[in-house]
């Protein structure tokens, strides 16, 4: 087993969300969340379904602009467009894989490198030496990244033909190609078997060792607690606990949020009435 790296967060905060609130009409999906990611840290964000993880995630990637509060990356407020956020240095992957399915593996990574290159339309048409230089450098960089995730042998394959686990890896490589300072992984092990999950774990550590901070949203608790230096728990839009794995694992409120409160006393009269009303309701569904 990989040892838990319980480093105290000595790095400087690169992502700093303060008082982030996100309302959709009358619904408050995220309420007054403070959140930081320090340089060189792996931070986990967990919470039961519907806790507002994805909404908060979207606030960090420029898809949503928080109703209140602000998100700063390296001291600057995040721009409101997702491509500008990527250019600023935050890269992301998607919960349900969103590769460019009909492009090759290499091309996918090259697209990820888009923000770090400048060649425009005229450069492409005129093909001056500078074009070939930049294109060559991009390809070299892309191949390095593919080697890093172990896909360099499959550079010419179509992305759609890769097996599931490799598509996940390719998505990470594509995100890394934008040379981020912070990588956001949205459920990177969803649908993976234990071996693949282990491999992803190693990959995330390797990314951290490159000096890139990582924020992971995950359901797989073992994965999160193995991986993260710090874990935040989001419940019903609010941050419940934050701390290292041991603290969070032992917190009663977290267990309660996931498994429910143990019954302290008899079900209240209210609940009993509710259940009875539901049973007495005309059984239309049952008749069918």
């Amino acid at each position, binding site marked *: 087993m990989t040892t838990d790296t319980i480093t105290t967060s000595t790095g400087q905060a690169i992502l700093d969300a303060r008082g982030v609130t996100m309302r959709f009409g009358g619904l408050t999906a995220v309420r007054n969340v403070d959140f930081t990611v320090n340089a060189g840290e792996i931070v986990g964000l967990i919470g039961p379904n519907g806790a507002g993880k994805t909404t908060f995630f979207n606030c960090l*990637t420029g898809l949503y602009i928080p109703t209140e509060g602000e998100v700063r990356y390296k001291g600057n407020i995040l721009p409101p*467009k*997702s*491509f500008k956020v*990527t*250019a600023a240095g935050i*890269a*992301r992957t*998607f919960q349900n894989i*969103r*590769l*460019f*399915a*009909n*492009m*090759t593996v290499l*091309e996918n990574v*090259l*697209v*990820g490198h*888009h*923000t770090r*290159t400048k*060649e*425009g*339309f005229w*450069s*492409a*048409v005129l*093909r001056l030496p500078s*074009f070939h230089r*930049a*294109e060559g450098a*991009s390809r070299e960089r892309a191949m390095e990244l593919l080697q890093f995730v172990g896909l360099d042998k499959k550079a*010419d*394959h*179509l992305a*759609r*033909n890769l097996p599931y686990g490799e598509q996940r890896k390719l998505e990470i490589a*594509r*995100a890394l190609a*934008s040379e981020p300072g912070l990588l956001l992984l949205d459920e990177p092990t969803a649908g993976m078997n234990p071996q693949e999950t282990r491999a992803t774990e190693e990959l995330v550590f390797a990314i951290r060792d490159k000096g890139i901070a990582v924020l992971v949203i995950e359901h797989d608790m073992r994965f999160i607690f193995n991986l993260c230096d710090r874990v935040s728990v989001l419940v019903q839009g609010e941050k419940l606990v934050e701390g290292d794995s041991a603290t969070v694992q032992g917190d009663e409120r977290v267990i309660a949020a996931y498994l429910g409160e143990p019954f302290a006393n008899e079900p209240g009269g209210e609940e009993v009435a509710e259940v009875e009303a539901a049973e007495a309701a005309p059984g239309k569904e049952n008749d069918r």
Partner: protein
Amino acid sequence: MTTQTTATDTATATSGKHAGLIGIPPKAGLALALGGSVLTIISTFMAWTWTSAFPGDLTVYGYPGGLQVLVLIGGILSTLFCLAAYGVKGLGWLVPAGPDAAIKLATIATFATAWYTVLAISFDLGGVVNLEPGGYLAAIGSLAALLGAFALPFERPEPDPYDPDDTGWELFKHKAGYKWTTFKAAFATGTPRRVGKLPSYVEILIIVAIMALGLTVFTYGIGTEYDELFIGFLITAGLGFAALSKAGLIAQASQITARHQNITICGAFTAAALFPFTQTDDQYATIGVYILIFATVALGLNIVVGLAGLLDLGYVAFLGVGAYAAALVSGSPSSPFDVHFPFWAAVLVGAGASLVFGVLIGAPTLRLRGDYLAIVTLGFGEIFRITANNLDGTSGPDLTNGSNGISSIPNLNILGFDFGAVHTFGGFTIGRFANYFFLMLIVTAVVVTVFRRSSDSRIGRAWVAIREDETAALAMGINGFRVKLIAFAVGASLAGLAGTVQAHVTYTVTPEQYLFAGVIPPNSAFLLAAVVLGGMGTISGPLVGAALLFLIPNKLQFLGDYQLLAFGVALILLMRFRPEGLIPNRRRQLEFHEDAEPPTVLTKTGA
């Protein structure tokens, strides 16, 4: 569900897995196919009818004429394939993917052309009595060859077990489905062996031969003088191409051309440039130049639709803007500006005006996605036409001369070369339209270069990424709006570039040349159809699509008012059976046929 499987059909079990579609022994079938094909060849040297009332003069013994030539070509093709099936030395290269399916399609081609001719003679002249022995011989020979070919063995698919509880209708559907798969399996062919590395000069010679063949076929098609011959040409060319493809020759040819892409493109342009020299008068060069204009604009649209995935239904407006801009500065007496720009300046004005127009339309509309964009561009296309109609001095400022358009546009004169005059080069007469054909070919070359180079670059990848998944592309740091606007503007200015030449070719620019849908290409609907029909995201696709879409209505005048109907039906059929277009981009092919052979490796950007 509990499905009980019954034993497979006993009839198919007894007839064996390797039987033909009809019950003739395979060996006899091959002999029959060969004999029939030879008979067909012989018949083309005989008279098929007694009177020269049927066009093409099929009354002579000794040499074939008109439709007989097409039948002869089909006959030779099937004979060669049959001989290759017998293992005749020196013919093995003809069938790298196995001869059987190729023989079937070649005999179908011969049969269809021969029977079409025989039936056309009987109908035109009123009865089979007008047929001479040669006609009967052709009909019998080609039928025999077809029957023989259908007796060739093929790998029958395993019948699916069926559910005995099925209702009669479900059973019928199941059986019909199996019959259809069997029928399709009869035309299945193996994968052609890869072409070994040949010396480069041999490969280049092969490319030259392919180009020469292409030029010959195109010249023949464009020069067909009567409806029957053109229909016969379409039948022979289409089915013949299918036969070559089943034989595996097309796959091998594309392997060779993929190895020498630049030479292939240069060869294609050389072949196209030779086209006017094959003509004695300017009649077909006219068609040639119109096809080129249409094809070039379709290729420009392919950047917008095929690469960036933006459905533009008003693209012809950019051609119109370019043409109007060039016409206004051409020194035409009906232009309100009394200026006569040299051609290079007119090109800049035309392409520049289209660029501005493209950015003006694109900036507000490109924030929309999908269907909305299509509707807005459709609207803008119409706005352009109606505006051009109204800027006549009465309903608006006098700029475009209203529905009369700008007429009497003078001929171009570049460096003392007068495009209106007839020139003679080494014994070849090159008329006005041929002059413009050469000019247009240069414009096409420019568009091809822009397409190729931009598609294989950072900006081209960004276009494809936007097409594939816009949200993911944005998350990868691509400024979607900006990149789409560039695609839109590039497409617009390329169309404007073609427009500047078009204005001079047609003498007159009127608003009615730039409709959404009409009988005469180019119009927005036909442009889009050329791209979709030919194959999105490829270079050769729109060129072939445009040539077909121009030639077919032009040659089949008798269809008259039904042209658009026929066009619609043809498009529906194509989208049903070959949604990736005639010349598919390899990406697209994978997209539509998931179960097709999995060529996991994609070496080139499918150009």
